[in-house]
């Protein structure tokens, strides 16, 4: 993290409940207060939980904003927080700036009954295969994706295999007839 740390480094232990966000996050919150649901800063990593309706505009803003310049999507992945969790699924966007050398993680939370989120392939073209992988393994549907189909599993596969309720051995024994 090349970004300067919080000025009161000693106050982390004194008041862990409500830490002050770093200046960059604070500037982002001032710029767009409705785009930040929650800020998690731990272990030198910055995570922002953002509303899923505006993920595409957030990403395009962070890519071009002079303070952040996240010109590189280093990873995009899904996660299943558990069958009983609500919201159950999350999609993580790992952003990196090749000029400023800092990283953010954006997190979008999704319910199982409405597992749709806007695609960010219009912002970073590398998101194409990442979103296909997340769709393949978790069943997250990315609206606006140019070619959303399975990428790792066979095309006639039933289910999404990285969900917590997917059986380890699959739904049926396999033999080629």
């Amino acid at each position: 993290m090349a970004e300067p740390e919080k000025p009161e480094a000693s106050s982390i232990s004194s008041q862990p409940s409500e830490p002050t966000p770093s200046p960059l996050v604070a500037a982002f919150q001032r710029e767009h207060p409705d785009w930040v649901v929650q800020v998690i800063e731990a272990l030198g990593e910055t995570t922002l939980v953002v509303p899923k309706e505006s993920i595409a505009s957030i990403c395009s803003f962070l890519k071009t904003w002079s303070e952040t310049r996240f010109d590189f999507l280093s990873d995009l992945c899904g996660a299943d927080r558990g069958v009983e969790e609500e919201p159950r699924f999350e999609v993580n966007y790992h952003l990196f700036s090749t000029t400023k050398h800092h990283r953010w993680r954006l997190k979008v939370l999704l319910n199982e009954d409405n597992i749709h989120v806007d695609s960010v392939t219009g912002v970073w073209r590398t998101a194409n295969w990442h979103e296909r992988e997340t769709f393949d393994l978790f069943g997250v549907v990315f609206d606006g994706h140019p070619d959303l189909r399975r990428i790792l599993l066979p095309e006639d596969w039933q289910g999404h295999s990285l969900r917590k309720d997917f059986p380890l051995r699959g739904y049926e024994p396999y033999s080629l007839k």
Partner: protein
Amino acid sequence: MGLENVIAEALPEVLTTRLDSLINWARKSSLWPATFGLACCAIEMMNATSARNDLARFGSEVFRASPRQADVMIVSGRVSRKMAPVLRRIYDQMPEPKWVISMGACATSGGVFDNYAIVQGVDKIVPVDVYIPGCPPRPEMLIHAVMMLQDKVMKESVRDRRDILEAEAREAVVPGTLPITDGSTARQNTLPETRPYTIASRHERRRSS
């Protein structure tokens, strides 16, 4: 002055033998494997042909990149479900007669990968002649398996073609229950009216026309 002179003096000019023995001897002496490296077992398979182990001593060193030129498929490694149709297709592209060696625990039974992504034994897809245990097997074990396969080839009969067993071959067979192809199948049943190897000889075609 060479060996052939000694043999020519010691032996008559005509030898009689069984046709099966001659053909099987020719087949087993040049078993050409198809290159089908799938995982870490393939490293040991490559090593089996290297200078130290030298599988070429037993007439099996020429790994062919095309299944059309191969006799035996060495399934070396875990077979994922996405790879399974590809493997079957390559097996179907190999000309008869053909044999399969299942190399290693993963190809034989799935190994430690007891999950949805890995086929639990390649014998669910293709009929296997020799299984090799190990994770991975040493090159000596692969050479031993090739020699076992050569013994098996010597017990086969020309009439006992795999085409007869095609229906059985497509079934998912339990390991060790593959029919032994020593000619007994063809002898037990009465010989079929048409030969299983379908191309009629030139004489037969002339006679029919």
